[in-house]
């Protein structure tokens, strides 16, 4: 009973995987964007030491950084189901746990996950700009807004871009975990096709290839952006 690699089925699975790239993007780019907004808010609250809230968010960030994504998604999924079923009847809502979209749960979970890490990215990037730059901006008469947009963000961006890139890659790979809460993305889609013929290795290799391609693509884009954004930092005497 020797193993035969079914290349025709492998190619078929590749096409299936490609068709599900939009789902992976939904599960990674959307959380990246949402996480960026939430993360910036968290970072600003923490940088400006808003009393109470800053400490609370710091604790939350530390906690969530220590909990595996799988557990975050599973807990969110279970809690939403139990919560909806317990609360909806009380208020006479025609809503049951069956109405909750798995994909939506995954997007919310991944967004929270992203916000935690991106808040650290934003904090690092903003703190990487020396305080002299803030002072110089004030000394020529800029207000906080002008300073942020014209001086601070342009300098923080080169620090943030590679970190954003590796976070996006983390989200693309993390999206595979959504398959464990029944979201149909690349892993589940290719597996589904293999269920009838047991050619799982072809299925997984096809999925792997597409994930790899996506990650390499993100790396390339980051490299290009990095080169474009940090021209002023290079070379010369100091």
């Amino acid at each position, binding site marked *: 009973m020797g193993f035969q690699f079914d290349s025709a089925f492998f190619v078929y699975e590749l096409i299936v995987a490609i068709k599900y790239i939009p789902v992976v993007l939904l599960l990674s780019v959307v959380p990246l964007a949402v996480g960026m907004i939430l993360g910036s808010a968290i970072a600003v609250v923490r940088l400006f030491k808003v009393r109470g809230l800053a400490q609370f968010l710091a604790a939350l960030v530390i906690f969530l950084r220590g909990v595996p994504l799988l557990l975050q998604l599973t807990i969110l999924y279970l809690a939403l189901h139990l919560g909806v079923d317990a609360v909806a009847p009380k208020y006479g809502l025609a809503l049951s746990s069956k109405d909750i979209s798995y994909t939506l749960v995954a997007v919310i979970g991944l967004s929270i996950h992203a916000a935690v890490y991106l808040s650290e990215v934003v904090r690092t990037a903003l703190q990487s700009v020396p305080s002299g730059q803030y002072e110089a901006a004030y000394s*020529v008469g*800029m207000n906080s807004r*002008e300073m942020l947009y014209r*001086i601070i963000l342009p300098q923080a961006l080169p620090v943030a871009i590679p970190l954003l890139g590796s976070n996006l890659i983390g989200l693309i790979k993390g999206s595979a975990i959504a398959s464990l809460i029944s979201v149909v993305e690349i892993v589940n889609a290719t597996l589904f096709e293999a269920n009838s013929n047991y050619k799982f290795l072809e299925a997984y290799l096809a999925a792997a290839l597409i994930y790899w391609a996506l990650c390499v693509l993100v790396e390339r884009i980051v490299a290009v952006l990095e080169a474009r954004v940090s021209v002023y930092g290079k070379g010369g005497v100091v």
Partner: protein
Amino acid sequence: MIEIKDLHKSFGEQEVLKGINLKVEKGEVVVILGPSGSGKTTLLRSLNFLERADKGEITIGNVQVNCKHVTQKKILEIRRNTAMVFQLYNLFKNKTALENIMEGLIVARKMAKEEALKISHYYLEKVGLKERADAYPSQLSGGQQQRVGIARALALNPEVILFDEPTSALDPELVGEVLSVMRKVAKEGRTMIVVTHEISFARDIASRVVFMDGGVIVEQGRPEEVLLRPKEERTKKFLKRILPAADYSI
């Protein structure tokens, strides 16, 4: 005209400025001397609200503020009446030499771009860096960066330019080029407050020398008075320390 009345500032328990009174007339060049930790930097930074003084009154040009109740709007007005040259230059790293000068003109002074460009070129030439307009700070030497810093301050045409040890981070051979630019600026009748340890600059250029120690102004007067015939014991001790014996008679 600049007037500082009874300015106080503490960091936690430590009182760094203990009631500073100082008046600077238009066109004066005031050099502040004093030992390390005496509060010179804190005084300059309080003048443009990079540091918020606890108590006292500051008048710069037509803007007057009481440090106890100051609004964000007043702070901006004060900042637009002053300019600062930093010890570590603090050029905007994401802007070229020319853009560094234009930035304040366009953003804070709301000047049209062509005019800002013209002014920036003019001041860049004045500090001898016409050729390096498009260089980023990382491509300039320390002395060149500081000259851009001075041009950036000049271009804003403020009531007063504050200099905080503008040459102390520079290699000795680069100090000269920066000092000579500062001399030129002083001779044009700009109002300047300069913290420096360059006694020769104080002697030749200052209209007044102010000696600070322990958060107060110990004595002030014309440079030859304060530097050659100091009245206060603390001033004598300080000068003895920083002037080599042979040089004491200037």
